[in-house]
């Protein structure tokens, strides 16, 4: 059983959801997600669960956190739920980021709500030699994330599309600006698929290894429906499910729409 302990707006239309749980089948790892039912018990609408990446996790306090943007019917309803409400939640689900402890210089590149899973990842990575590149529409959307990452003591770079921070532009452009003088050993990225494709292309060109997390429309989140199939790049391989083999894939593993 999961219970809301906080559900508050931390940016324009962006909410922090903190849940308490009784028990979990296993401790969640960075890059995994939970699948949350937002409808009233007994109501058939909205029908499907909503997947959200783990933003933070605290085993001692039995707490799991998400950051979500209100985009449609389900997230609107979720944003109106009060503390103490019990939720039907499945998870942790999916394949997490692998932490690749041996990599020294690591870049994390996050766009929009794609930033959410990178925070828990950043926290869990042993190496503190991390450079984090975040982008969003504007400063207000980034503020909450920026504060949190600052708390981790990592090198942080910020960009916004609508106003000039370090630059006026996307996380991708920000990262590319730094890339020349500063080639990482490994990259982790999450955000719009176009951004993932561009990061992947650039990384592969520079022989940088890495992982990315995709957002696919999901039916079940547990691998039974094949709604989330991702075409693979290897010719002899069949599709992979974003909810089971993903959402984290290696760079070059699945076909992204650029």
């Amino acid at each position, binding site marked *: 059983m999961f219970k809301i302990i906080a559900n508050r707006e931390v940016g324009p239309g962006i909410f922090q959801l903190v849940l308490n749980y009784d028990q979990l089948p296993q401790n969640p790892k960075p890059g995994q997600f939970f699948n949350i039912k937002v409808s009233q018990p007994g109501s058939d609408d909205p029908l499907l669960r909503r997947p959200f990446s783990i933003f933070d996790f605290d085993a001692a306090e039995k707490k799991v956190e998400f950051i979500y943007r209100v985009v449609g019917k389900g997230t609107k309803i979720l944003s109106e739920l009060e503390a103490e409400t019990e939720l039907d939640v499945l998870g942790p689900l999916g394949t997490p980021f692998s932490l690749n402890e041996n990599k020294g210089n690591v870049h994390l590149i996050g766009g929009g709500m794609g930033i959410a899973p990178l925070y828990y990842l950043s926290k869990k990575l042993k190496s503190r030699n991390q450079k984090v590149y975040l982008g969003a529409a504007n400063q207000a959307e980034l503020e909450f994330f920026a504060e949190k990452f600052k708390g981790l003591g990592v090198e942080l770079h910020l960009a916004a599309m609508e106003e000039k921070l370090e630059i006026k532009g996307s996380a991708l452009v920000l990262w590319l600006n730094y890339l020349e003088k500063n080639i990482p050993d490994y990259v982790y990225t999450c955000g719009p698929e176009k951004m993932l494709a561009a990061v992947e292309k650039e990384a592969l060109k520079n022989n940088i290894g890495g992982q990315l997390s995709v957002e696919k*429309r999901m039916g079940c989140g547990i*691998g*039974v*429906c*094949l*709604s989330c199939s991702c075409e693979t790049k290897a010719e002899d391989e069949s599709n992979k499910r974003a909810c089971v083999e993903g959402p984290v894939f290696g760079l070059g593993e699945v076909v992204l729409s650029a």
Partner: protein
Amino acid sequence: MPENSIETKQKLTKSELNLSVVMKSQQQTEEKNLNLKNPLITASGTCGNGKELADFYDINQLGAFTTKGITVEAQPGNKTPRIAETSAGIINSIGLENPGVESFIEEILPETKNYTLPILANISGYSEQDFINMAEKLEGRAELAGVEVNLSCPNIKGGGMVFGTDPEKVFEITKKVREIYSGYIIVKLTPNITDITKTALAAEEAGADAVAMINTLSAMKIDIERQQPLLANTFGGLSGPAVRPVAVKMVYQTYKKLEIPILGLGGVQSGSDVIEFMLAGATAVGIGTVNMIDPAAGPRIIEEIKEYMLRHQIKNLSSIIGAAH
């Protein structure tokens, strides 16, 4: 007073309840019947090939298991998005992603060897020959209790019309499969038709042991922000609670016209919904979309059926089949 008399009567307990149902075969011989310990059958395409559900419960608790639809050749499926949510429903256009019948036999069937429940292979084809090919390949496979012939695919050689919308095609394909395949044959019908009793009767005449209804309703959703169809494939099939009233009506309407049993499905979410389908005339009931939302739906629904049986003091679940007529 009736209240008193009920109170003084011996009450049934949970352990006395009998949930088993028999899907009779057309041959009316006992060894050809499909015996189910309860009426729940997984709906094709919504439960993978079973092992994904193992984290949640032992699927051997169910009546039977239907595999994801297979075709002669491997299919990559449609482009994504393949799923859209609608009010109390979903539209899917998975596009029959599957490894083809040969891989199915070599890789998937062996994985089912620990299952003690009957396994049904859902077969889909784009031509009559496809169905014949698969029937031949699957004939004699001891792992299988039977096949479910999915007639909701377009007849590619016949102008793209969906097989299941034409009673003659339903008859022909069923007959061909019947001639080859000796196991239990369920013919799965499409609801996108003026009169589903005609295709149901055609299947029966051609030798189907049972019919399944309904497959999904043809539907679409438009992404109004991008001003284009949301599904990459434009159209898809609607399932989930939204369609249940249509499915129940079709089962009810068909029940009296048919001798063979009906596998009713479409929108089942709870034990009450299973009861509704059985009262309408279904002998077995499929659970599809609900598994995607509640992976442990199977055992929950079985419990809910038992509660209903206790409340109504029904000892044998099969006694309610068609009771709403």
